[in-house]
């Protein structure tokens, strides 16, 4: 019997002063190790096409991306169905390296915020000044009471990643923050 995989809140969508959408299935692999290692960088770039990102940055190549999560952690983003094979490929390539890999695709939920007001919406729920953040930047923080990673994909496009167990909480939170007419208009 085949398993039907679904994302946390399939099809969830809300039209506010920014649009909030659950982004669907997203392959995510946590890579921890010595990011200064040349062998590691080479193996990861070969497998994903992306260069290792600098501190708090994202590098993208086609449908793959690497996100800097901490001094020894990179989140690999890839198509959901390719994640298991990518883990295998990388495990082999990193056999002698100080590194660990884990497919965390189904442990997370991803939301997409579209609209010029994303900074205004997120500023209500995160203790962060979003003014300096632009495309290619990543910021890990909290959204109200849960951990969140914010990936800035474009001038009017960001993704918010959280644990799958708090997906409904996050969606409700983003809906409230994006409610029409509630823009704090901090960023103009």
């Amino acid at each position, binding site marked *: 019997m085949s398993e039907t995989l679904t994302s946390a809140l399939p099809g969830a969508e809300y039209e506010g002063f920014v649009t909030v959408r659950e982004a669907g299935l997203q392959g995510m692999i946590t890579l921890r190790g010595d990011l200064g290692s040349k062998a590691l960088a080479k193996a990861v770039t070969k497998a994903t096409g992306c260069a290792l990102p600098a501190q708090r940055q994202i590098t993208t190549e086609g449908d793959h991306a690497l996100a800097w999560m901490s001094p020894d952690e990179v989140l690999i983003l890839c198509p959901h169905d390719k994640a298991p094979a990518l883990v295998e490929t990388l495990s082999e390539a990193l056999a002698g390296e100080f590194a660990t890999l884990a497919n965390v695709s189904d442990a997370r939920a991803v939301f997409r915020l579209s609209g010029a007001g994303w900074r205004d919406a997120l500023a209500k729920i995160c203790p962060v000044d979003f003014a300096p953040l632009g495309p290619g930047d990543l910021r890990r923080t*909290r959204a109200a009471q849960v951990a969140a990673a914010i990936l800035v994909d474009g001038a009017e496009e960001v993704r918010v990643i959280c644990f799958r167990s708090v997906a409904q909480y996050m969606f409700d939170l983003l809906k409230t923050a994006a409610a029409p007419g509630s823009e704090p208009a901090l960023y103009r």
Partner: protein
Amino acid sequence: MLLLTCPCCGVTAEETEFAPGGEAHLKRFGPGSADEDYESYMFNRKNPRGVHFERWRHAYGCGKWFLAARDTVMLEVFGTYPAQTTEPPAEIVEKIKARRPDWEGYA
């Protein structure tokens, strides 16, 4: 409001993004040590009104531990530095002395 700069990821964030970890630079006394040393290690903590050295963790950020020198009254932060440091670094001590000339020093 307390603002800390995480030396591990470079983010300057507000206190609620971090988790406090108590006094920094504790020397561990384990099995075989004198009772007074062990008791002191386990239970006795400085509780200064003023300059203090603390452990903090960037809990909602990069997840790493680091150390911070700050004033417990004014919330002024003199600096943050790596957790792999057994005593306050010289440049932090200099900064504190410049800001608090009557500080008795780290002991």
